[in-house]
């Protein structure tokens, strides 16, 4: 901890939800990959908006509407800064899933035709598989998958071959099921060299490490607010300006048009063209507060702490008899999925919950991946910067008990 920095202990106090008992035990929230908790500053930013400034945006000429517009467009600027983009490149969506669907619909239906190849990886979340399968059904595009190694990293041996003829390459930055950190910049570089448009699913990285879309070089990037200390109901799609400028709209409605006649309509430029209807105003403001909060701590510092928790988590879990840890053993994110020989993931999670420990069990929206790994379901502990080493040790004790119970 550098001079002047708030301690992790102090920071943890910003999260009211963490201060509670569950089933008579102090809550240990290790389900951060599913959704993160929210600091007071985020909750208050939204309350403040509703109690003082609430109005619809853009077309308003009165004071409240000016404030709401300034808040909403200010949030766009804040998020642009958060990922190194320009304001025009930030489209607010409900989250990663809607962002990817937006690309599949608006970009995919315009630029992809029957036989074109979309390259994915075997470790994608359903939200980066199903939209492309749906597009494949509608348009006849072909899907191709980069395989994974037994360690749970991408097998890049044949990448050049796999990239051949690829129109779009869409991949997950950090796997929510394996903790694998993919070499995003390298993947983007090679895919761009092969002529592909590239989308990065940053759902699991956006709240944890520094992200710069210009450095990454990707064309699209998707993230969810609720996974980075922000509210539910908001996320974004980054699109490179030249791409967005040429892209047809997604939804039709108010705010995204410049002129409507009974015969036809003209659309506004990006980002408005892609934001039909009243947007999630309070949520955008909440998300900006989350970006502010995270950068207040510093993403480099957060990532360092993540790494510490990841190492400790791995060390503690490795000592549970009969455990199988999924994903790589080093260079990984602060989430660890595992199976116990004696107990099914559901039983593990139910029992852990009885001890106040919140884990997630199941397929983590990566059914094809788990099938490939021969794992019907896994349990997952995922950490955030407000988690502690003590909590990880408590987890170790609880899981030992669970293991013994079912053994």
């Amino acid at each position, binding site marked *: 901890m550098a001079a002047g920095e708030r301690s992790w202990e102090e920071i943890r106090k910003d999260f009211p939800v963490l201060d509670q008992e569950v089933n*008579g035990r102090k809550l240990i929230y290790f389900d951060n990959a599913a959704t993160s908790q929210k600091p007071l500053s985020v909750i208050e930013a939204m309350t403040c908006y509703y109690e003082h400034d609430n109005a619809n945006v853009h077309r308003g000429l009165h004071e409240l509407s000016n404030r709401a517009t300034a808040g909403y467009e200010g949030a766009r600027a804040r998020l642009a800064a958060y990922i190194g983009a320009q304001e025009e490149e930030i489209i607010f969506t409900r989250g990663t899933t809607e962002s990817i669907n937006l690309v599949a619909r608006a970009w995919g239906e315009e630029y992809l035709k029957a036989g074109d190849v979309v390259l994915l990886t075997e470790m994608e979340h359903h939200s980066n598989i199903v939209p492309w399968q749906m597009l494949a059904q509608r348009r006849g595009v072909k899907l191709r998958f980069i395989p994974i190694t037994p360690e749970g990293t991408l097998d890049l041996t044949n990448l050049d071959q796999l990239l051949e003829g690829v129109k779009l390459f869409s991949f997950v930055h950090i796997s929510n099921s394996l903790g694998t950190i993919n070499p995003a910049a390298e993947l983007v570089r090679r895919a761009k060299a092969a002529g592909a448009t590239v989308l990065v699913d940053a759902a699991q990285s956006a709240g944890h490490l520094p992200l710069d879309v210009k450095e990454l070089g990707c064309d699209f990037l998707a993230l969810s607010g609720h996974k980075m200390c922000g509210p539910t109901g908001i996320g974004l799609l980054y699109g490179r300006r030249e791409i967005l400028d040429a892209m047809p709209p997604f939804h039709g409605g108010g705010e995204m048009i410049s002129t409507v006649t009974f015969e036809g309509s003209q659309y506004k430029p990006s980002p408005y063209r892609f934001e039909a209807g009243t947007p999630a105003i309070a949520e955008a403001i909440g998300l900006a507060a989350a970006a502010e909060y995270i950068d207040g701590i510093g993403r480099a510092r957060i990532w360092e702490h993540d790494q510490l928790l990841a190492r400790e988590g791995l060390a503690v879990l490795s000592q549970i008899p009969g455990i199988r840890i999924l994903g790589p053993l080093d260079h990984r994110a602060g989430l660890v999925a595992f199976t116990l020989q004696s107990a099914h993931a559901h*039983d593990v999670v139910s029992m852990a919950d009885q001890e106040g420990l919140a884990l997630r069990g199941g397929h983590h929206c990566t059914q094809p991946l*788990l099938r490939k790994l021969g794992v019907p379901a896994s349990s997952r502990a995922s950490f955030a910067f407000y988690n502690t080493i003590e909590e990880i040790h408590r987890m170790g004790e609880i899981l030992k008990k669970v293991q013994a119970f079912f053994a």
Partner: protein
Amino acid sequence: MNLEELYQEVILDHSKRPRNFGPLPDATVTVRGDNPSCGDEIELSLKLNGDQIEDVKFTGQGCAICMASASLLTLKVKKKDKAQAETLLTGFKDMLTAPEAPESNEALGDLQIFSAVRRFPQRVKCATLSWRALEQALEAHAGSVTTEEPAS
């Protein structure tokens, strides 16, 4: 912790050593049930002779609740007729999902140890998976069932 309530001895025992586990070569009807959200998969096979359930076995894998429930199911319905099995089925489902918890139902016998599952809403589908398969099998429809149903 009230875990012991959920995982009673009998449940643990049946999940570790499921009865009537294995293939049933002379089955007259087989139904596959799966719970895609967690990976539970069981296959229930019945040998029906008219209205009589002459034999019943299952295979598959799943959590302790799911396995124990299937195991106890086989013990309970073997050698029963369809009407008796249906009564058990209804009683079992009611015990777990009726809006108001019903009075204790003696007819269910051992199966009553699953009544605690009621308080673990996400686990109800683990306990009912094999019973949903049975339901379909009793209508003598081979096929598959899934726990993914609309909120009802």
